[in-house]
């Protein structure tokens, strides 16, 4: 990387944001296993969860490496992706609130997925050209998977939005419920400023036009109405204030690691 101010603390924060998004959303999606409305959807949801958990391993793996460098830890003492996933508490998580919102019905799960995928796709395309080669490599790999995720969630949102009166109503309810969480994806703070200046990650706000274009196209085809923008519900990506839902998710996700400290699984 080019000489300049040390970006490591900002990079660590950014990597946690990426990895926590995929970890928490992947966890939520995996809750559907064995319970989806049709077998093909069950398989597709498991596939998406699997991709997201795979991406988590890469993002949090790199986060652990960068954290080790910052703390000057010797190799053997360094934390792993698992340490970050299973041994942090709610206030240390950096995912956007959208990812931790409970599944609700199948429509809400798919709407959440679409609203996230549309951002994730733009974000990863930009990150594939990151000045940090490690970030660029992970993003390039993940982008291929996420293109498929977006394609699939768009198709299902269109199918259910422009489906029966009941499915249409449920999808509109889901959109109304989730839309206030969209704004957080585009908020920026000094972490983003530093990384964008160094060419490591895009300025979040710069992704908004492309995102809005995707939403307008897909939700239009789905005959759904985009709600009036309200104040963005944030507090996840900076850890300032998560929802109450996150703690319950962590309670099950982290149970074994917490109950049997130091065991190898």
């Amino acid at each position, binding site marked *: 990387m080019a000489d300049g101010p040390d970006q490591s603390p900002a990079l660590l924060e950014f990597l946690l944001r990426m990895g926590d998004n995929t970890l928490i959303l992947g966890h939520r999606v995996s809750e559907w296993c064995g319970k989806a409305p049709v077998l093909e*959807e069950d398989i597709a949801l498991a596939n998406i969860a699997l991709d997201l958990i795979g991406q988590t391993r890469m993002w949090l793996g790199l986060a652990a490496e960068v954290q080790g460098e910052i703390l000057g830890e010797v190799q053997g003492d360094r934390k792993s992706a698992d340490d970050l996933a299973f041994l942090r508490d709610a206030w240390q998580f950096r995912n956007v609130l959208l990812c931790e919102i409970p599944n609700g019905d199948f429509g809400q799960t798919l709407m959440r997925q679409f609203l996230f995928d549309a951002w994730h796709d733009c974000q990863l395309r930009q990150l594939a050209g990151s000045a940090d080669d490690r970030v660029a490599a992970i993003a390039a790999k993940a982008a291929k998977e996420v293109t498929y995720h977006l394609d699939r969630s768009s198709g299902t949102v269109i199918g259910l939005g422009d489906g029966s009166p009941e499915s249409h109503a449920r999808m509109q309810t889901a959109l109304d419920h989730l839309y206030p969480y969209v704004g957080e994806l585009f908020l920026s703070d000094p972490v983003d400023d530093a990384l964008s200046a160094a060419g490591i990650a895009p300025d979040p706000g710069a992704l908004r036009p492309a995102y809005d274009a995707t939403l307008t196209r897909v939700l239009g085809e789905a005959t759904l109405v985009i709600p009036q923008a309200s104040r963005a519900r944030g507090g996840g990506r900076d850890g300032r204030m998560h929802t109450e839902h996150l703690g319950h998710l962590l309670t099950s996700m982290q149970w074994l690691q917490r109950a049997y400290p130091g065991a190898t699984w």
Partner: protein
Amino acid sequence: MYAQMVKSTGKGVILREEMSPEERAFQDRIDAGEKIEPKDWMPAGYRKTLIRQIGQHAHSEIVGQLPEGNWITRAPTLERKAILLAKVQDEAGHGLYLYCAAETLGISRDEMTEMLLDGRMKYSSIFNYPTLTWADMGAVGWLVDGAAIMNQVPLQRTSFGPYARAMIRICKEESFHQRQGFDIMMTMARGTDAQRAMAQDALNRFWYPSLMMFGPSDKDSVHSAQSMAWRIKMNTNDELRQKFVDQTVPQAEYLGLTVPDDSLSWNEDKGGYDFAEPDWDEFFEVISGNGPCNADRLAARTKAWDDGAWVREGLLAHAEKKRARERAAQ
């Protein structure tokens, strides 16, 4: 091995002289090792028995997602979570191939699902046992998938083409499942005292239910004899159970775990282990709906089906609208 006690439709094997010319020609094809394909003529009993057997197998894959799905959100590491997700996803895929194979016999997936939910079709007894600790993910892979493989490997040579081809794909994945289960058991058995205790407890709870997976002895069963004549059942239940015990006992020893059977001993004369039979009264209770998890499993499947009705209807409505628009544009 997800088909237990599948009843054939007749009263026993039909003697050759009692067969119609069509039946005789059909049996000759089977005896010559030919594959029967969906459009070929087949006796009504063959078709019905296969629908029951393949349907039961498919349902077992689908219901079988639940006891393992129970631990996906609590898997202890990211790697274990990913492996378990992939495994449960494979099972859904197996269900899909098998439903497709059954559909070639003239029944729809929706009909079979309804028959599962209203109790007309069964699934394997094993999935009515709970998964209580992480070691159960090891035991299910090692023992349950291990038992399933015993039955499924020979079924790759079964007489009905679509079923045999589905089994070939399934077997490739099942052996990976069994290995991952054994790997979890090995990690637990070599872990802390608590992990070893969990591993032993899982073996204690899953040993006899795994032996039950093969079904009660069928050496005198007329249904099995007919199925074997049709080559939709390749071995007797006792043969497979013996093979399973002979393979599994040394693996348990390697893990340093104790098979919960005091009477277990090597029998030099037969070249296999002598072992205790499972409690068949318990087995009959479980398959008649009174196992530890029957009510929960069926409730979960029923809820998934009912809650998903609006999704299925919505997507259907969309497909119809799309077709109508395309017609209008022409």
